[in-house]
């Protein structure tokens, strides 16, 4: 998928803003952004429409107006969270129960925000919608967007935000559309079993894209080890949260360990003592090995 922002504006230099002579960098056209967002969210569509429909079908079992099911997909926007809410509504749970259960189920999202603080910074009112729409899948897509090296370029930032908003909106649209289908049908009439695999496939693809962006093996090993340990040690309903929380704690520990190690030295520690922060160097040296690497 080629990004129009790199092809269309490659002539733009860093000091465009100060140099009045050269034309300022043009924002990417809205149509282009919609196309890009549609392209990126198609896999989510294949996952969200059947899952949303499953939610809709489940909701019709409740003695409640179907509009409330639609409302849930509009204002909650959480896969497992909404399934849980249906279960709690059916059981006649109280406010506190719903609040605590939802908070616990979704607390992994705490960690998602951590890695998007910088990216969402300038989004203004749209920021609220971006935060609201931060599902697992949307997070995965947003975190995998090409890291623009031009953080200080306001036009690039703005384009990044416009694209993120469109991706979030389209993902919610697929979820709402699926919900409507499920609510209307009451039951699924076609055999779509297995189509939710699109989301797993999406995570695999985005994981590989992360590998291409980082070129460092340890985060992938860390994630693998932590989750395998979680599969072994944790009950299934805590696997996702537990693994992400543990990985985050390890990341924090690793950061402090690294800093502690670096402080006695005046010069930076040798390269293999810590993950290189200069991306370009690592990319250049490891580029030739790229084709030999298999799944992270």
């Amino acid at each position: 998928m080629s990004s129009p922002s790199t092809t269309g504006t490659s002539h733009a230099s860093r000091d465009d803003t100060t140099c009045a002579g050269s034309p300022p960098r043009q924002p990417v056209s809205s149509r282009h952004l919609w196309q890009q967002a549609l392209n990126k969210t198609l896999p989510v569509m294949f996952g969200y429409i059947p899952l949303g429909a499953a939610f809709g079908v489940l909701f019709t079992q409740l003695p409640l107006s179907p509009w409330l099911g639609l409302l849930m997909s509009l204002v909650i926007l959480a896969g497992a969270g909404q399934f849980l809410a249906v279960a709690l509504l059916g059981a006649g749970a109280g406010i506190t129960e719903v609040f605590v259960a939802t908070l616990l189920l979704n607390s992994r999202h705490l960690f998602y925000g951590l890695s998007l603080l910088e990216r969402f910074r300038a989004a203004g009112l749209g920021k609220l919608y971006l935060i609201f729409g931060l599902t697992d899948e949307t997070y995965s897509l947003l975190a995998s967007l090409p890291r623009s090296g031009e953080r200080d370029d306001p036009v690039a930032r703005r384009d990044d935000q416009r694209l993120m908003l469109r991706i979030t909106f389209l993902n919610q649209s697929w979820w709402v559309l699926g919900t409507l289908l499920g609510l209307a049908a009451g039951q699924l009439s076609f055999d779509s079993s297995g189509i939710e695999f699109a989301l797993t496939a999406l995570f695999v693809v985005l994981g590989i894209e992360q590998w291409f962006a980082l070129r460092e093996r340890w985060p992938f090993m860390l994630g693998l080890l932590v989750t395998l340990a979680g599969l072994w040690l944790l009950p299934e309903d805590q696997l996702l949260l537990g693994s992400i929380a543990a990985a985050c704690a390890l990341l924090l520990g690793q950061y402090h360990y690294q800093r502690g190690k670096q402080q006695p030295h005046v010069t930076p520690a040798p390269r293999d003592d810590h993950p290189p922060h200069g991306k370009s160097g690592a990319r250049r040296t490891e580029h030739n090995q790229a084709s030999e690497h298999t799944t992270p």
Partner: protein
Amino acid sequence: MTTLQALLLIAVSAGATFATRALPFVFLSRHSAHPLILHMGRYLPAIVMVVLIIVSLSAMQLPDMSESAHHISAWQSWLVSAEGAGMLVAALCVAGLHLWRRNALLSIAVGTGLYMAWLQLGGV
């Protein structure tokens, strides 16, 4: 349960969900340039992706809450079940195809098609 009660519970669920997503932005947005936050922002997505891959592989039955408990707690038998094996093969195909062609839609479509065929044409 009356509609009003349901509305109240939906509002609470929406509020709790939004809270989990918004808390880091509320408390940490002033520190967005802190090296630790940058460190997290750099490496967390890769880790989360691996976690999501494994969790989604092991929890494909999630929408059916009643059965999922049995299904996942028996994860040791996951691999030997036809469904688990099909999923693993399909996931490896996605990975291989993506490393080869690096076309996200192609990798996902082929992998999902494979898995659906496996499931529906008598794999299970």
